[in-house]
């Protein structure tokens, strides 16, 4: 290798090193939000159990304090509470597992239906009866304390078969 070629390669190598050195923080700052771990659920009080009637689902709003970048704000989400028996509840995240439209209760069919692409879910276990949703409605962890129903609100990735918290 001649002197000219050597200097050329050396300059290119130094440039590549410097470029990689500077690209690391710049690209890292851009990519980091995509590598964030799932946020834990929020335990929310849905009120006294007396207002839920057996066999008639009832929707409830939950307000979450969400940290969104540099903004901390209240986000409202919807859940469906299904009282199956005296002491047997299911609480669904109201987002359709297809692409996130909020499902509605259709008493005539005894099913939850998404208004967007025709997803239909069974009441008592959330199983898909029709349409494109890839998995049943997302049931949420819940508990009863001193006669009040609590739910651990959590969002999950939509459009995929597995229930992955986000």
């Amino acid at each position, binding site marked *: 290798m001649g002197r000219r070629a050597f200097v050329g390669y050396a300059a290119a190598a130094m440039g590549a090193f410097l470029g990689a050195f500077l690209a690391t923080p*710049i690209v890292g*700052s851009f990519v980091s939000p995509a590598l964030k771990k799932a946020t834990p659920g929020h335990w929310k009080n849905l009120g006294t159990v007396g207002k839920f009637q057996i066999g008639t689902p009832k929707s409830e709003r939950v307000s979450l304090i969400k940290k969104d970048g*540099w903004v901390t704000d209240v986000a409202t989400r919807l859940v469906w509470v299904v009282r199956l028996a005296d002491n047997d509840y299911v609480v669904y995240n109201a987002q359709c597992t297809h692409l996130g439209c909020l499902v509605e209760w259709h008493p005539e069919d005894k099913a939850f239906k998404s208004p967007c692409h025709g997803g239909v879910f069974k009441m008592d276990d959330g199983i898909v009866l029709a349409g494109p949703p890839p998995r049943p409605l997302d049931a949420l962890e819940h508990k009863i304390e001193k006669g009040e129903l609590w739910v651990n609100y959590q969002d999950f990735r939509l459009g995929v078969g597995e229930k992955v918290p986000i």
Partner: protein
Amino acid sequence: MMDKVGSWLDERTGVSQVWQAIFKRKIPLGVNFLYTFGAVAMFLFTLQALTGIFLAMNYSPSPEHAYDSVLYITNEVAFGSIVRGLHHWGSSAMVVVVVLHMAVVFYLGTYRYPREVTWLTGVVLLLLVLGFSFTGYLLPWDEKAYWATAVGTNMAGTVPFVGGFLLALLRGGTEIGAVSLARFYAFHTFLLPALAISLMGVHLFLVVKHGVSVPPWIWRRATTGQKKTGRR
């Protein structure tokens, strides 16, 4: 394969001539580090542009959120403080380097025929760099930023006859507020980069067209017929 793609492209674009003109051009004997400040300034401009783009992804130019979003960049975004630090120190280095670049061109007399237009575009580029510094200073929206901009814009207000108009134009009103911040952000990220990149294009075209100037010490030797010393 690469050769094939290369020659296909070259036949249709002539890109190898551009490469030749920029990287394979002849430079005179005797140039030294004094001739590198222009390239350093260009490197710093690239660095400022890249870090600026990625800072903008986590910044909000509104009075409610500007300061919080800067704190968010500094404390929560991965590598955020490094990216912000590079942009912060890079801006100071930029001013230092372009002034050095100008001083070298001035003292070596290379602004003279036929390079006057290169010099003139350089003068405007210097003003643009100062414009970047001035508008970028407001964006963190802390006390120092606010009052520095208050003072700076008040200077514009002292211009005879049109001062009041200039002041209101810069601030987008009589006071520094939401409109001023949005304006400064737009100047800093849209207007000034567009102007700077266009002028840098002209500046660089002229640099390539005229070639690097022969250093005065080589010129002197050539015209006085001195023998080549061992040093160069």
